[in-house]
Structures are given as structure tokens and as C-alpha cells.
């Protein structure tokens, strides 16, 4: 069971959370054309490696946030409140490679 880092509550067991899908996907515009709509609704990156995801600490503070997780190792590279700028998975990976 993962330890998910809630930006407000700290690391908490996975059962307190619900996953809310890949982060950084803009909601389709009201006048989105079918291709853009399909892209926004149904296509995800399915990344092997660092991936930004949305979580909700539903059985805790109730808040949504963004966490970057390595989909291979399940290691979390960080988490941020929604709307707060955060390094992209690629930047995080580059930073880790330097270290």
C-alpha cells in the first residue's frame, strides 16, 4: 500500500485517497472540436517513469492535489496543491539524474 504525500497532511496510507487521473490535462473548451474533445477525454500518456497525477485525500482533508510518481517504482517525487506551479516530470527526472 502506497504512502501518498498529501501536501497538507503529509504521507498517509493509500486507502485514504482516491486517484483522480493524470494531471495537467485541460478540460475541453465548450467549443472543442471532436478531435480535441476526444484527446481531452480519452487519451492519456500511459507514461513509464515519472508521471504527474491528481489525487484526492478524500478520507482526510478532502483536497485535490498533484503528485509526481514513478510508475515503475511507485516512488513519489513530490506533491503540490492544485494550481501551484511545479517542476514537470521531465525536469524532476533531469534533476534526479544530476544528483
Amino acid at each position, binding site marked *: *500500500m*502506497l*504512502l501518498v504525500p498529501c501536501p497538507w497532511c503529509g504521507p498517509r496510507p493509500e486507502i485514504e485517497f*482516491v486517484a*483522480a487521473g493524470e494531471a495537467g490535462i485541460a*478540460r*475541453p*473548451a*465548450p*467549443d*472543442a472540436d*471532436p478531435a480535441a*474533445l476526444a484527446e*481531452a*477525454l480519452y487519451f492519456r500518456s500511459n507514461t513509464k517513469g515519472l508521471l504527474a497525477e*491528481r489525487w*484526492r485525500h*478524500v478520507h482526510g482533508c*478532502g*483536497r*485535490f492535489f498533484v503528485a509526481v510518481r*514513478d510508475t*515503475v*517504482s*511507485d*516512488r513519489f517525487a513530490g506533491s503540490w496543491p*492544485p*494550481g501551484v506551479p511545479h517542476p514537470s516530470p521531465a525536469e524532476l527526472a533531469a534533476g534526479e539524474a544530476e544528483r
Partner: protein
Amino acid sequence: MTGPFRARGGGRIDRSRILRFTFDGRAFTGHPGDTLASALTAAGVRLLARSFKYHRPRGLVSAGVDEPNALVTVIRDAGRTTPNLAATEVELYDGLKAISQNRWPSLRFDVSALNDLFAPLFVSGFYYKTFMWPKSFWAKLFEPVIRATAGFGRAPTAPDPDTYARVHDHCDVLVIGAGPAGLAAALAAAVAGAKVILCDQDPEFGGALLGDPTAKIDGRPADDWVAETVAALAETPRVRLLRRTAAFGWYQHGLVGLIEKVTDHLADPDPALPREVMHLVRARRVVLAAGAIERPLVFPDNDRPGVMTASAARCCLCRHGVAVGSRVVLFTAVDDAYHAAIELAAAGVIVERVVDLRPDGGPMTAAARAAGLAVETGATIDRVFGRTAVTAVEIGRIGADGRVAPGPTVACDVLLTSGGWTPSIHLFSQARGSVVWDETRGVFLPGRSVEPVRAAGACNGTAGLADCLDEGWAAGADAARTAGGGEVSPRRFVATGTSIAIGGFLGEVPHAGDPDRARAFVDFQHDVTAKDIRLAVREGFRSIEHVKRYTTTGMATDQGKTSNLNALAIAAEAAGKPIPEVGLTTFRRPWTPVSFGAFAGGNRGDLFDPIRPTPAHASAVGAGAVFEDVGQWKRARVFPRSGESEAAATTREVRTVRETVGLFDASTLGKLEIVGPDAATFLDRIYVDPLAKLAVGRCRYAVMTRDDGFVFDDGIVARLAPDRFHVTTTTGGAARVANLIEDFLQTEWPDLDVWATSVTEQWAVMALQGPKAREVLAPLVEGLDLSGAAFPHMSVAECRVAGVPARLFRVSFTGELGFEVNVPAGHGEALFRLLADRVAAVGGAPYGTDAMHVLRAEKGYLVVGQDTDGTLTPADVGLGRSVGRGKPDFVGKAGLARADLADPDRRGLVGLSVADPNVVLVEGAQLTADADPKPGTSALGFVTSAYFSPTLGRGIALAVVAGGRTRIGTTVHVPMPGGSIAATVVSPVFFDPEGRRLHV
């Protein structure tokens, strides 16, 4: 003397106490410190079990958790009956009652042993090849017979009366295994000041040291060092010691599942104690010191009772004071097994011969010869004589060309074998650690893991005692330091002891037998032989995962602990590939079987799942309600009167609502309070309906989609004040609607000043529905005129009802004049009783969800999730006109603008009518254009709701069908087992289509 094979001295048993036990009804005795296996061995019992497939007689193979053969059932009572326990793991207690398994009528005479004669038929994939035809025989004949014949023990028939506890724990360093490496690791971590948990599946700490009388640490017997170390650990407050506790599974982020057996070894356990405790330990660092498992050699008839591993014999002698036989032959490919022969000889057992597979033996060969043992090198075993017990073996001599020439036959009652040792990397692999093939020794070793785990000792491929201790200490020190604990100085141990052979010989040994006929067993538990594996490879199975499933090697309770590497080597050789290319099968959780009780813990009976009764639940019970589960809710389904059937009661309840008035507990509806200056803007964007201009005091039925435009939920939006809304959701959708609303509030439109609060549990809701609803309610209402003109359909108001502050809705889910009274939950029970009395006084009655469903279907009111399935838009269900297309944005706007939604063939919600009024269609039945559709015909749609309507005196149905309402007036067919039923497509509103009854 507890049995003729009890050694005169030695062993970690308490000879001063005698324990009585029975096996298959026969009485035996043993001592504290015995296992069931050791006590039976002391008594000379060799035959302990029958094999899975061939029902071959089987005896002990190992001395521990890896035992594949000696599975027994231990019986305390009907509910406390545990099948499939390894006899080597069953600690003896006074009065223990065990029986053998998989035999009838008795272990010695087993009818199904005939299977063995037909063994040539039972090849790999036997079931797949044999029971192919005729197809219909599988479910009725083949499978039941196979299931009845195969298998191990039988599950208990009575409920489990024991309790099982669950503990969530945390530590800096978890040490798994309390052998030399584990003890050293725990000691180092404890000295460094870390919070430590040390667990071992054995009742006693010490691991391999317990069965190695030659071991010395720091100049003293290893026993003393173990005792001192355990005592030192026990005195350290931050250390917890868990005996009889196996680490069975690794989950992510350092979470390890431990199963502690608390009472199974006790004759008369305290009923207050749980039988088992599951510890879920979140560890910052884990030291895995799980040791290694000795592999049996694979040769013809190596499964006869009396053929066992050398370490099993050594363990019996050193730990339990039992000599496994009187005349022993040792067959080995490695050095350390010689110790068993030497120690048995010293205990007075005749060692007839040591047969060493290696051409020139090893370093121990000379020592053994010096000790007076007869050793043959470059030799093998060709045959084993004896059926229910070994009587003799035939030695084969391996020539320079690799051919085997039959040699002498040697009489014996026990044949010890050792192919070498396999490191226990199970948990390391579960921790998503990579495994590395060690070419020189022929073993898989731990590589790197993404988890905070480090292996030490034999499971890491380290063989010597001093090396294991040093490595354990270093691992423990490192774990404590990296977990944020203190430092401890490095330490080197001076130690001598048995150095086990990591690696050794893999696969089937050379022998003079016919490779296509000889029964050289690889997996004892599932009766898989070397030729079975070769056959699987010959038939084209290349992946070891496929070979495993086809032959069933490595399955069942032991998960191939003794067999996997031998099977892999045989498959690799047959495929002509190196072992690492063939690969390992997945190491699955759990490491050892864990009882269902332990997983269930306290989540049994009423605590299995939370139950949500409504505030008026007790009154509904009092009114004779029959309940249904809707999610976790208990909802009153029907209120049958004495002697009344449920169907008759439903019919009566429907008529009551149409004719007088019914009372319905609607408290399970999801309720949200949406408050704030931007509340109207927010709801206008969340629902497809235009809500910004909803007047205070008015309600609107509204539909919610997600951005895909498909119906997600529906409910009533009521405006109590300019900045305050009371919103209802479906009973099942409350949580997901609240989640969607929070998602948009927090992440999409954080600029909107709105608060959303779930108030489902805060309000009890009583619906009064029927022509006399106003007559029943009006006298109770203060401060509100209920007349049709002053409080029309779809009104809402705050007022007092029966003296209690209330939110009163004029809404209807029945098509009748209706009110829903919301009162604070604590008043729900009293309100239900008061209204029930008043309803009864005018000839009405409470009604349940069955009647509610009929009433709403008569009106064509849909139920989201029953009449919709996530592919229907508001327009598809006839609500297209309510979509606020002029709104600049709402959730679903882009999805609903898709051009293909205009396709006239889209499925839509309709009604169905069958000529025969007594026919009620079946929900889920498919609709076709032809009465007798050809196989492969696509359905036009399906029935979503179907009831008998008492109001109309006929069956009614809702359905989704291609073309939707454009098909009204046409005929569709409902193919059923008894023949197709023709149905006319009609409007989904069967009753009062003008809605006159609502507006009174």
C-alpha cells in the same frame, strides 16, 4: 520412550513431559519441542500423506515451511478444523488430533492409488487433452468428478469461532528471519538505537543455528550466543520480538504483512486471545534474512516415504532428538549434507553409504571417510525400492562418458538427498527487487530493489557462518543509520559452523532409468515429474510461466519452494536455453498460506461492511418492512401485512398512493448544501439545465453529465435563498456527485466563492404522495399555505412541520400530488410515526422501494444507472429540451455538441407494451427486429425496467432501443427461452401523460 526412533539424548525438547496426540485415530506420544512430524518420525511412522494426483504414498521431505508432502488436517472441533498444514509446522500439544488427507478409505489402503497405475495417461495437460469432448460433459460430469477426486484437505463446515486481530505498526528497522544474519542485524540496529521489529516463523529464534551442533560464535557454542543475543534484544525497550510470525507479503513503500500464530500451539488456549494476529508493519528499512531452502535431488522414485533432505534429518536429530531411520544412505551433490551422515552415525544410526554425485567428491569426502563412512563418488541413485517405505536403493556409477552403469543394491530405510541450497528471495522479489543469476554457483540472488530492503545471510547467497553474521551486522547498522537512527561501529565475528552449499546441482540427475518412463519427481506436492516438464517443452511451451500452468509445477500451498529451480533447470535443458533466459516464475504473496480469518480480521458479520439505516429505520421495522441493500443503505422495500405476499403488498401500496396517500422514507437521497455568492453560477455550470435564474422558493429537476455529455446523475435543485441551494442526488450517486462538485470547485473554478457540504445524514426525508397528501400534511405545517396556488408543484420553503424546523418540497416521483418533508435527522423517527398514523387515518399506508419503482415507471421517470448506462445523453432519455444550450459553459457542453449525437439511430429511452397484459418482460432482455433472429444478429436495444402496473392492470416496460422515440408505433421482438415476445414501442409515459394529477 516416545517412539523407537527417539534418540537417547540431544534435541531441544523437554523430555520430562509427555504429550499425547493422535494421528488418524492412532495414539502416540511426544515431548514439548516436538512437531507433529518429528513425533511421528520418532514413532516410526513414515507414511504421512497421499499425493495430489497419483495418490502415491508420501512421507516427510523437509523439516520446515517448505514441506511439500506431509500435509495434515488438525481438528479441534467442527469450526476449528485446519486443513493443509505442513506436519513440520504443527507444534505438538497435549491432546492434538490430526488426520491425513487425500485418501479413502485409509492412508495405508487408498482406492485412488489406482491412479498411479494409469500414470502414463495422466501426462502434462491431461485435463485439456482428455476432457475436450463432448463439450457439454465438462460442467456436469468431468469437472465435478475431478473436483471431488483431486485436492487436499477439506474446509471446515462450521463457522470459525476464533477471533483474529489486526495491528498496524511502524518501525525503523524490520528484520525478517532470526537466524545468524537476522539476529546480528537486529542487534546492530538495536545498539544503534533504532526502533526494531524482529520476526521469525519458528517458535524459537536461532534459525539454522538451532540445527547445527558444530557452530561456535566468538569461541563459545552458538546456542549461548543466540540465548545472550535474544536476551539482550528482549531487554531493549525499542525492540519487539515476534516468534511464530512469518513475513508473508511485501506491499509497497516498506509495508510488510506479518502473520503471528498466537494459539495454534496451545492445548487449551485462553479464549480471550486471538488465534492469529496480522501485523501490517510500515518499516523505514527492512533487513531480509530469510535463509535458504535445501533442494531434493531429482531421480527415479525419489518420492518414496523415507526419501528426505539431509537437512531434514539433521534438524530432526539436533532439534527434536529423533533419528529419522536406522539404516541410512546419503545421496548428495554438495558438501554440507555430509554433516547429517556424520552426526547420524555418531548417534548410532548405521550409515550404509554416502553416494556423492560429484566425480571426486568434495572437501568433506575425506573427512567422512576418516570418520569411517563408506563414500562412493561419481555415483547416483537409479532406483528406490519399497512402496510405502524405502527398503533399498540401487546405486549407479557414472562413467567418464556420462553413462550410468547399474551398481549395487543397498538395503536401507532412509535415503537422504541434497542438491544444494536455494536462497529464499521470495520477499525480495515481491519488493520488486531484481534477481541476478549467479552463473558460477547456479542460483538467483537478490539484485537491486526500489524498496528499502537489503538482503543478508544465506538468502543473499552468503554461506559461511562468520560471513553471515558480519553481513547481518553491517545490514542492521546500515538500516538503522539510513532510517535516521544512530550509528554503530562495524563488527567482525569469529565463528565457525556448517557452511551450506549455495547453488549445487540443478535438474534431474543422471541415472540408468528410461528418461521417458522413470518417475523422477520435481514437484512432490502437485505430482510433477521431470518427464512431464520435458513433455511440456516438447509440446511447444517455452515461457516458464506457461510450463508452470500446463504442468502445474510450483503451484499449491508450498508454491514450489523445493521444486521451482529444478523444474526451471529441466525446462531450460529441454529447450536448449540457458537458465536465465528461461526466467523465473513470479514469487507470489503469500510466502506461506495465511488463513482467511486473518485477512478478514474483525470485518465479519455486522462489521463486514458499514450499515446505514435511515433515522426512521426502527419504525419501518415496526411497520413490518422488508429491507433491501442499496449500497450500504438499508431501504424498506415493501411493507407486507400479515398473510400478504410481497407482490400483493406492492400492488396494494401502488394503489394506495394512486387512490389515497402513501408515506415513503426518502432519507437515503444524497443531499448537498451549496452556499455562497457564486452558488447559482456554479450550479448553472455543473448541471446541464439553466439554473442561474431559478427563483427563490422554486425547485427544478436537473440532470448532470460529465464533460463527455453522458447522463451521470439527476436530482432536484432547490433555491432557498439567493446564495443558498439544497440539491439532491440519487441514493447511489451521492458520493461521486460530491466528488465531482469538489473537483470543479477546487481545481477548475477556484475563483468561484462557493461552499459545498454533504448534508445527506443531517436531514431525514419523508415523502407524502397521493391525492390526500395535502390533507394529511397541512394541519402539521406552520407558516406556510399549502394550497396549489400558493405552493405549486416544484416549490420549496422553510417552515415548521409538527413543531420542528423543516424544509418542505412540493415534488413528486410518483406522478401524484407530493410533498417531501425534510427535518433534522434526529426528528425523523418521530415524524415517520406521526405521519404514518395520520396517513393510516385517511386510508393510506407506508410504501417501499418496490412500489416506488412501479409508480415512477408508470410515469416514465428514469432511474440513473438502471435506465441509463453511461452511454446515453439527456436527449437520448427524452430530456434534450432541458439542456441550457445557450449557456456559455457547463460541464458536458462540448460533449453534447458532438455532431454524431444527431444520428437518428442512436439508442433512446422508450416504453414497451405487450399485447397480453399479463406478460411482464424481463429486465436486461435484448430487443431484435426479427422474431427469430439469426445467430450473430446485433440487438436493437434492451429492456431496462419492467413491472406489472396495478394502475393500468398490465405489464409495462422501459427500454433503450436504436432510433429511440422515432420507433414508437413499431414492433420489436424480445427473444426469450420460451420463444420471442412481440412488443409495441410506445411513449415511456404510461400514466397521466398530461401531468394533471401533479398540479392540484
